[in-house]
Structures are given as C-alpha cells and as structure tokens.
C-alpha cells in the first residue's frame, strides 16, 4: 500500500506531491511512537508530511555518496524511487509492501505519463500538473493500484478540456461498464479500415566475461511489445519457439522434435499483460488474449541458456613502468555476416591519474573523455563475423597514493537485428468471429531488436 508519491526535479524540488495515507511523513524516528496521527493538529500533520518529502531529498537526492539502491529506508519509512532523465519518482510507504508491486506501479506510471504527454521532463510535468494529479487520483486509491491501462484511462481522462458535452449519456455509461467490466482494457466498437498489427521482440543481453574469454554470467531479458490496430473484439493467439510447447507438439513426430528442438529456447520465467488468459497458459501453455487497442507489452521473459553473444571483447593491458600503460582491445562480431550491428560503443576505463592518452583505431572514432575517465570508441555499423581493433597509450602521473588501480571492466553498447536469446515468433493468429475479417486479412509485422544491457569484459 503506497502511502504517497512524490516527484522531484534534479535539484530535489518537489514537483508533485500526492499523499494517500496519513501514516507517512510522521516526524521521523522517536516522535512517531509518542504521537498518534489523529492526535495531531492538522498543521503539524502537514509539517510532518513535509518531513517525509525532505527526508528523501536530503538522504537520497542530495546524499553525499550516490545512493544506488532503489529502495531506501529512512526512519522506518521506505522510499522506492526510479529516475527518468532528471526526474525522480518516489513512492513512499510505512508498511511492508511488495517492493516489486511498487516498482511495477512506478514503471506503469511512467508509461502512462509518457503516453499522455511524451517525454518525462521537468518542463512537461510542470505543464501537465493538473493532468498528473487527475491520473494519480485514478490509478491509486488509498495507496492500492487501480486500472493503469493507458487506453482505458484515455477514455475518461482527457487532455482537451471538458468533453462531456460532446459525449452522450450512452458513451458515458459505456465507459463505466467498460472500466468496471471483464475486459477493462478494450472498449467495444473499434473499427479500422486496415487491420494491422506490429510485433517487436526487444531484448537486452547482459554479460560478464573474464579476461580469458570465459563467460562468468550472462542472461537476456526480453519483452514482446505489440501494437494492434484491429477492429472489434479480436481473439489472438501467440506462438513462439518455447521448448516446452515444441516438445509437447513434437511428441507425435520424433524427427520434427529433433529438427526444431535446436531452435527452441528455454524460458526461465515470464510475465504477461493482464489481457492474457493465464488459465489457458497454465493448462495448455498457449498464449491467447484479446489485445488492448494500441501499443502494449504482451510479455516479459528471461533466459539464461544458449545465449548468442553478439560480440566478443579481447582486452590486452600492459603496464610499462609507473608512468605508462598500453591498452589493446579487439572486438569480434559473432553473428550472420548478412546482419549489421549498429551503434557500437566500447568504453575502456582509464586510471584516475591519467595525464595523457594517444589512441589509434582502424575503424570508427575513439576519444579519451577525461570527464568520464574512459576512452570511448564508437563504430556506426559492423557486419557479422568481422573483427576490429583499437590500441591506446596512456600516460600516468605518479602520485603519492599507494592504492593500486582497480581496473574496472571494459563495457560495450550495441544494437543487433536479431534476438540474442534465439526467440522466434512462430505465429500470431487473429480470430474475430463477429466481424467479417479473417486471420489472412490482418497485416502483421515482426521485428527483432537485440540491445546490450550490461555487457562487460574484465581486463
């Protein structure tokens, strides 16, 4: 149960403050035991609320040491925060809540805001002040998350002023029945001339590799995002190369199993959008749903086995005396030559006492960025099964500090047009019994994007 939600700008100024419960913001520590909330005069309660707001500012935003934990407990009050560019969103509670629920809510809140007014920035928040309060009233009730489906929200929280005079009574009652009905995420009577749907498989691959090339840890977290423009109330069925499903089907024909088994993947865990019928997934492992209109995230999953690592980084660091360091880094792309990786960026950390750097690279551009204590090497495009190399000479200033340089890992960013987990969309069938369009009439688009998460190689 979220006690309150605050939005701060980068200076720690409060932009939005919405308190759902009186228990938060009690004067911190000992006082809370002495006074019960009801016994306090209103003025004091307001003052106390200010304290919770201040506590987060002082202890997290303005903390001397950067706060890395997304959950901070200050005087028996928990603060859950996420940061979007320069904006801090903090959910506050005194109770022992499900932290995952709170973060899920915060992410959802970000999505909703983004859907309403685009990028979350101080400017936008200030401009949509009233809207945000209206949204917060709707999606949280006494701290319990409510319907946070953007499509549904947009039907009754609108940006263009009061629309009610244009809405008929029927429409209004429709909204009520839809929001409170069984399928709260989709309204009836949607019509499109062209029935179309877009499917994006977005994955981020995380890796930690030893200098010798041994994988220390690797996993892929992926999401399937769907954008649907379909008429009526279509029933959809989504199929992918899930190992369990393939094996179940392959029971009949053994050779098919062996053929497709190679391509099937083991999904460690997955979560679905609320529209997916979980009972059906549990019994038949089939993913069937009535999609909301517009864009939504159909599922999220994680895999740890048989990951295709798109790049291999081979570092070579040599210390030449006390004042010089030689670094050589080779990257190898490890996918089909026909595919192109994009936005490749290799970040090679430099010691804190670096006084000068000379870089030579064959491809792309490399630069020493003093403000980040790193050499940043950028390559726009790179095809599969290629190799590239950078070498740098780093000059050091002798210091009286005896601490040895900790050698942080070399990290990498990239984007590849395939799913590193190996996930494949096998089918997405659409049935709309009431209207006269069939599965074949729907135009479907599928796209795979693999991005780097934390992709590091120790050196």
């Amino acid at each position, binding site marked *: 149960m979220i006690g309150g939600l605050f939005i701060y700008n980068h200076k720690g100024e409060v932009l939005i403050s919405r308190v759902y419960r009186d228990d938060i913001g009690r004067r911190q520590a000992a006082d809370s035991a002495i006074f019960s909330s009801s016994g306090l005069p209103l003025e004091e309660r307001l003052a106390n609320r200010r304290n919770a707001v201040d506590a987060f500012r002082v202890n997290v935003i303005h903390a001397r040491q950067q706060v890395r934990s997304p959950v901070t407990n200050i005087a028996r009050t928990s603060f859950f925060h996420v940061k979007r560019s*320069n904006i801090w969103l903090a959910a506050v509670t005194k109770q022992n809540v499900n932290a995952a629920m709170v973060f899920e809510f915060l992410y959802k809140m970000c999505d909703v805001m983004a859907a309403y007014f685009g990028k979350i920035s101080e400017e936008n928040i200030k401009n949509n002040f009233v809207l945000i309060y209206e949204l917060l009233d709707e999606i949280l009730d006494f701290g319990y998350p409510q319907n946070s489906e953007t499509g549904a929200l947009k039907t009754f929280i609108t940006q263009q002023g009061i629309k009610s005079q244009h809405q008929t009574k029927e429409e209004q009652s429709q909204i009520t029945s839809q929001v409170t009905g069984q399928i709260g995420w989709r309204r009836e009577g949607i019509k499109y001339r062209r029935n179309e749907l877009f499917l994006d498989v977005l994955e981020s691959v995380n890796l930690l590799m030893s200098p010798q090339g041994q994988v220390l840890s690797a996993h892929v977290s992926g999401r399937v995002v769907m954008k649907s423009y379909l008429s009526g109330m279509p029933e959809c069925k989504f199929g992918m190369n899930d190992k369990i499903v393939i094996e179940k089907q392959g029971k009949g024909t053994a050779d098919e199993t062996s053929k497709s088994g190679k391509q099937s993947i083991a999904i460690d865990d997955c979560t679905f959008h609320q529209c997916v019928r979980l009972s059906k997934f549990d019994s038949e492992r089939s993913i069937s749903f009535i999609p909301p209109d517009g864009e939504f995230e159909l599922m999220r999953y994680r895999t740890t086995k048989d990951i295709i690592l798109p790049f291999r980084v081979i570092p070579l660091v040599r210390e030449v005396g006390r004042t010089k360091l030689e670094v050589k880094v080779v990257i190898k792309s490890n996918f089909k030559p026909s595919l192109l990786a994009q936005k490749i960026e290799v970040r090679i950390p430099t010691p804190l006492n670096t006084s000068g750097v000379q870089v030579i690279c064959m491809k792309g551009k490399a630069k020493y960025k003093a403000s*980040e204590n790193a050499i940043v090497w950028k390559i726009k495009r790179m095809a599969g099964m290629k190799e590239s190399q950078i070498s740098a000479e780093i000059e050091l200033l002798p210091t009286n*500090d005896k601490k040895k340089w900790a050698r942080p890992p070399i990290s990498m960013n990239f984007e590849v047009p395939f799913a590193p987990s190996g996930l494949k969309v096998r089918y997405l069938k659409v049935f709309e019994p009431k209207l006269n369009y069939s599965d074949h009439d729907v135009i479907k688009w599928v796209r795979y994007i693999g991005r780097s998460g934390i992709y590091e190689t120790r050196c």
Partner: protein
Amino acid sequence: MPAVSKGDGMRGLAVFISDIRNCKSKEAEIKRINKELANIRSKFKGDKALDGYSKKKYVCKLLFIFLLGHDIDFGHMEAVNLLSSNKYTEKQIGYLFISVLVNSNSELIRLINNAIKNDLASRNPTFMCLALHCIANVGSREMGEAFAADIPRILVAGDSMDSVKQSAALCLLRLYKASPDLVPMGEWTARVVHLLNDQHMGVVTAAVSLITCLCKKNPDDFKTCISLAVSRLSRIVSSASTDLQDYTYYFVPAPWLSVKLLRLLQCYPPPEDAAVKGRLVECLETVLNKAQEPPKSKKVQHSNAKNAILFETISLIIHYDSEPNLLVRACNQLGQFLQHRETNLRYLALESMCTLASSEFSHEAVKTHIDTVINALKTERDVSVRQRAADLLYAMCDRSNAKQIVSEMLRYLETADYAIREEIVLKVAILAEKYAVDYSWYVDTILNLIRIAGDYVSEEVWYRVLQIVTNRDDVQGYAAKTVFEALQAPACHENMVKVGGYILGEFGNLIAGDPRSSPPVQFSLLHSKFHLCSVATRALLLSTYIKFINLFPETKATIQGVLRAGSQLRNADVELQQRAVEYLTLSSVASTDVLATVLEEMPPFPERESSILAKLKRKKGPGAGSALDDGRRDPSSNDVNGGVEPTPSTVSTPSPSADLLGLRAAPPPAAPPATSGAGNLLVDVFSDGPAAQPSLGPTPEEAFLSELEPPAPESPMALLADPAPAADPGPEDIGPPIPEADELLNKFVCKNNGVLFENQLLQIGVKSEFRQNLGRMYLFYGNKTSVQFQNFSPTVVHPGDLQTQLAVQTKRVAAQVDGGAQVQQVLNIECLRDFLTPPLLSVRFRYGGAPQSLTLKLPVTINKFFQPTEMAAQDFFQRWKQLSLPQQEAQKIFKANHPMDAEVTKAKLLGFGSALLDNVDPNPENFVGAGIIQTKALQVGCLLRLEPNAQAQMYRLTLRTSKEPVSRHLCELLAQQF
C-alpha cells in the same frame, strides 16, 4: 563572475568555480571535476615547466576540488615548489594547500620543513609570518619537534617585527596546547613577560594569551607578569577612548586586551605589593565607574565591549574575594543588569551573582535583589535564564528568606521545564530542610513538592522526609494529618502514597481520634490507592497494613481479609506474596503484646547529613557543586550516605530482625522494632520450639511463634528459621574475640560485678544479677579520651547455635559517647537451655575518624543460672548415687594456681552459684555443693565435691549433673578458678 585580470586574480579558477556552481546535477559536477583533474594532470605532467602563476592557479583549483569533498592525490610536489617562490601570493597558496592537505606522515614533510626553515630564517617579515601561520595551522608533532626551539627565539629577538612577534606568540601557544612537552621552558620565559610592555598592542594581546596559558602550568615562572599586567591594564583603563586609535573598538579602548589581562590576573591570588594592589583596585573601580557612565554610542558593539570588560572585572573581584567594597559595588552593578532589556546580560548577571552569593561579603547585598530574581524566574522567556535565576535563588537562600524562596520555587516548579525539574526538586528539598524553622512547614513543603512534581522526586527526597518525621516527635501528628489530607486527592502521585503509607503506618494513631480520619477510613483510603501502585509501593503498603493491625485492632478483620485475598497470597511477585503470607500469619497467631513489640514504633534514625545534597552535587557535576554547597560539606558525608535509605539496616546498630524477616530488599517500614533482642527471640523459638507456657518476659512471642513452627520447607517462613542472618548482622564486621577474652571471662565466673575490659580508649564495666533462668546485665561504657566516639554501637552476637540456648535482649545506646562520659547499656538475658560458650560482645565506634572495633566474651556462663539448694547429708548422698552413670560425672585433678585458702575457696564456690553444704562430707577439708541450673527448657541438678590436698598442692574436683556436657563444662569452668 567577477572580472579578473591576469596578475593576482586567476581567471581560470574563477571560470572553473562558476562552472561548478552552474552544474545542474551531481553527475555533471563530477564530470566537470574529472575533466579539470585530467587537465591539471596533463599540465603537471607536461614536459615544459610551468610558470609560477599557472602552478599557483592549478594548486588553487586542486584545493577547491578538495574542499568540495573529492580526494586529491597529486599536486603536493607543486605546492611545495610554490613555497620556494619569492612572490607573496604564490607562497601563500603553497602554504594554504599544505596546511589544508598535507597530513603529518607525508614524506614531503621534510621538504616542507626545509622550506619553512628557510622562510623563518629570511629577514622578510611577511614570509616569516606565513611560515609561522603554517606551523600553527598544521600543529603536528613533527612540526613541533622541528620548530619548538626556534619560535621562542624569534618571539623574544629584539629585531623581530611586531607582526612576526605576534604570529610567533600565537604559534607557540598553539604548539604548547597541542603538545606541551615539546615547548622548552628557558630564559625566554622571563623575556616573554616583558612583552607585556611592548609598544604594539597586537603583540601585547598575543603575549597575554600565551602567558595565560603557560602560567597555568608553572605559575611561579611568570609571577612577575602581575605588576606588568596591572600597569598595562591601568594604562588602558585610564586612557581616553581615542588614545589607542586602532585598538579602540566603538569607543572602548582595547577591550580584548583588557579582558585577557583580567583573565590573566585571575590565575593569581591578589597581588601582595600594596602599590600594585592599590593600582589594581583603582583600575577595577574605574571600570565599575565607567559602567555607570552613559553609553558613548547606541551601537550594540559598544555596550558588548564595555560589558565584556565589566563582567571580567567582576569575576576578578569574585576571584579575589577580599574587597568587600568592590564586591558590594559589583553586586549593585549586576543588580542593575538584572532588569536590563538584553537577555544575555540578564543571564550573565544572574550567573555572576550566583558566585557572588557565596562570598560572605556580598551575600547580604545579593539578597536585596531577591524580588527581581523571583520576578525573573516567573517572567523570563528564556529557559536558560530561568535556570540561572533558580540557581541564584538557591545560592542566596538563608534562614531569613527561605520560606519565600521555597514557595517561589515550588510555584515555578509547576511550569518549569522538564529538564530542570529534578534539580529544582532537589534544591527545594534541601532548602526546606536546611532552613526549616518549624518542621510542619518542612513537611508541608515536601508534600507539596511531591504533589506538584511527583515524578521528579527521587527516592532520597522522600526517604529524608521519613527520617525527619520519625526523628521529630513534634511533627508526627501534623505529618500524619497532612498526608492523610493529601491522600484524599483523587489522583495522587505514587511517591505520595509511599510517604503516606509509611507515615500513617507509624503515626496513624495520632490522628485516629478524629472521626474523619478514623482507622477504617485511613485504611480504606490507603487501600484505594493500592491497586494503582507499583510492586515496591504495594510492599510498603502491606507493611503499613500489618502496622495498622497493631495500631488499630478494630481493622484487623478487614486487613486480614485483604491479606488473605488470592491476589496477595498468590501474587506473582515473590516479595508481595511473602509479605502477605507472613503478615497474615503474624496477625492471626501473635497476641497483641507480641504485635506491639514486633511492630513497635520505629526508633529514631541517627542524625547525619542529608543525602540529597550529595545527589545534587552529583547532578551538577564537580565545580558547580562548590557554589551551591556552602560549607555544610562533611568529609564523611559521602560514604555515610552512599546507599541512603532510612532502613534500620543502615542504622548504626544493624538490626538483625530486618534481615531476619527476609525483607532485606524492602524499604524501611517492613522492619519491626529494630532491637536485636526481639530478633533473637524469634529465631530462638523457631529452631528449638519446646512448647513453653507463658510465664515471663518474652514468652508470648515464643508461644505464637512456636505454633508457626512446622513450616513447609519451601515456604518463605523457612527463612525465618535460618539463624544465619540473625546471628551475625555483618559477619565481616565481627572480629574474633580479643586474646585476653577468655582470661577476662574467667574473672567473672565467680563474681558478677567488675571491670570487664579496659584499654586506653575505653573501659567496660559489668554489673549483673541473675535469678532463676533470667538475668539482667548492665554494661557501662566509659570513654576515657576527651574526644567523642562516633557511631558507637555495641552488639551482642551469638556464635554457633547459642541463640537457641540463650536470649540476650539489648537496649540501644546513643551513637555518640562524649569524651569522659559513660553510657550504660542494659541487657536482659534469658537462659533457654544449657549452653557452653558465652555470647560475644562486639563494640564498634569511630574514634577521631578511625573505626575501632573490639570483640569480647560476655561474662555469661552457665553457672550464673545456678539456684543453690540446701540439703541434708543423706539426701545429698542419695542423689549423688543416683547420678552414678559414668557420663554424668566429670572429674578433674589439677594443680592449684592460687594459695589454698579455705575461706577463699568457700567464697569462690559460693560465687560460682552452688550452695555449700556443711557437715556432709566426712572429711571436713572437703567442700560439697549442690544446686540446680535453671534454664527455660529444663533444669539440671548439679552436685559437686572439691577435695583439696594441701601437701601436693592439688585439687580433685568431681561434678555430677544430670547432663553430661553440663558436668564437663562446669568442671572446666570451676577448675580454672583455683
């Protein structure tokens, strides 16, 4: 951004700082700093040498980054390089960086020291000053070691500039404070004193600071500074406000220097030289006069400076405490400040007055301001000022104004801040006791105190009330009435219940005549509070109830009902349960006489110093105590009052009965009358317990107690049967009997009166008479010295199982025995059954502060209870034959120690207690005696025969009694007499 030009300003630095200030987030700031650091690193690394200006600029940037909270691990070398520059700004930045960033164990310290040394040796005063400042700022041990010897030299060198001297003095002061052992004392000390005569006021100010610090350690070295300081002070004080030019601060000439000089003078006693003293007094008077002048400026700085000097002057006057005239004037001056608008001034005035109040000269003068101070206590807004006002009231209190002050403090207490309530409570309690004219006022005050601030009334305070009420007959009735009334309030504090419970239990009978406070009313009033109280209070109330049974027999049934209730008898708290069980049994078994004895009124507590005072001192901490305490301090007070509570166990004669009942943990009232005799009797019967018929003295007690006899083993009653606590109230206190004790005892086997013991301090005389199994003994303690004995306490102790055999009831004696005086103690002795060892008499007292203790054997032997029997010859022989069993006879043949005189022997045998039977033995030389030893439990017939042999100088003694140990013991005793 400030406009700067290349030269002394550093544009790069200004840009960098404004960049940092414009950063929107922490990350941005860190990025900017990283970039700058990389830039500086590349610059420092660069092959071409940097010029002084850029070096200075980068070092400055590093310093700034460091002060922002980032680690700096390079640039030290560059900073050290700057030290050798000839430009002031570069050198200054170098020194700044070093004093901020270089830690003492750096390897650069040698280089730095070298640079400092060069600068100190240079003739350039600015450079010398920079170096001195750096030493003072770093102040490390290494620096001290390197330069402690040089600095005094610079300080007293004739050619040093004034500013250098000033810096050197302060630098030395810093080093001295950091590590006093490093600064060598030497001939320079004398010359430092002469700096007080320096032309330059800055030098004088610095020197005074240094001397004030140094002279605390070795005052004699700097004694000469007094006259110099006085003359300097008089020159400043008498100067016109314009004379000192730069050192005149808002029309006040050199205020800082004046204050420092006055402080310096406070390190020493008043000057002995009359001229110097006269001059100083003149100065002080001038300052006091100036305070009366109208201010020369309306600015607050002017009055601040003036008052600073004035207050320091007053503290000097208080410090000297020898000039009544000045003290009174100071007091009057402070009196004016008491009503000043400025809160700080009022505070300071109250504080200074507090110290003035303790001076005999100004005490009266301070007292005149009582109304103002009381007013301050009432109306002052600032709590700290109120606290000072309360302190001052306490300090100025004496007999004449105690009532007023105490009542004001009580009134203040109702609104006082929580933090100081307890202190005020203690103060009120002390003042009320110390200056109480009549004790009813005292009782009123304390009860009021408990009512107003019960939570803050500590144990000591209410213990003390009880002590005083118990010791003063005249207030007991009043106290009982007052507490009774106080308890009628619907909500009263637990401490009030405690005091009420105790006082009503002791003295409730004094108000029982009034129908409004009849015994049942008293009881129901107390019992209505019972359930709201803590365990300790309930225990106390239970004791009160049993006392009520004694005081008011009509309440017995009700109280027994209460005690019998399951909530008491089966209380989860052991203490309460035990009390309930014991008191219930006691009340149902004991006769009224016994109850009256057991629950007799508490004896007066020995007078001693109030423990509250000690507590206040503890609270205030050392130092403050001296101001509060005006000479009442008794060197022994602390240890005497260490664990103060008015229980008899801290009373000079430790009461065994208190312990005996297993109530050690309980507060006072549980203790039945604190006479050791009673306790012994109780124990006696428990272990022995023959059914005794009520005949004499303490028998009723035995009767009821013996019925209690068969207690369940685990019942708390079992405690009662444990003789150990009763036998020795403080086992460690009773030493073994003195070596001569046996010899002394033997003297008394055959006689009842005489001197039992004598040494150069004390004489103990004995007078005793015995009849049947009872005896009475008078002990006379004579103080042979001219000094009073304190805490005089004689105790009778029963070693082993003697207490089951012999009961000795002692009367208390006064705790003080004046020089040359004699006190008498009466012992009632009852022989319960035959016994072999005599009881011990332990005498303890303090003679001139040293504790003395002495243990003797009390001359009570079994033969004292001999009843002589006359009988004819044949009767004798018939009985003699009856006692023919071998174990009944004891015989001893021994050599005579004394001349064998028939008359003497006869007298001794008579003194021994038996009847002498003539014409019984065929041999007329022989002596024959008969008697009965009377004990309460049994009678032992005893026949004896003594056959002297004049030729051999031998005796043969034969004793036949019905009890074997008695025979042997008597034989033994008698044999030693011949």
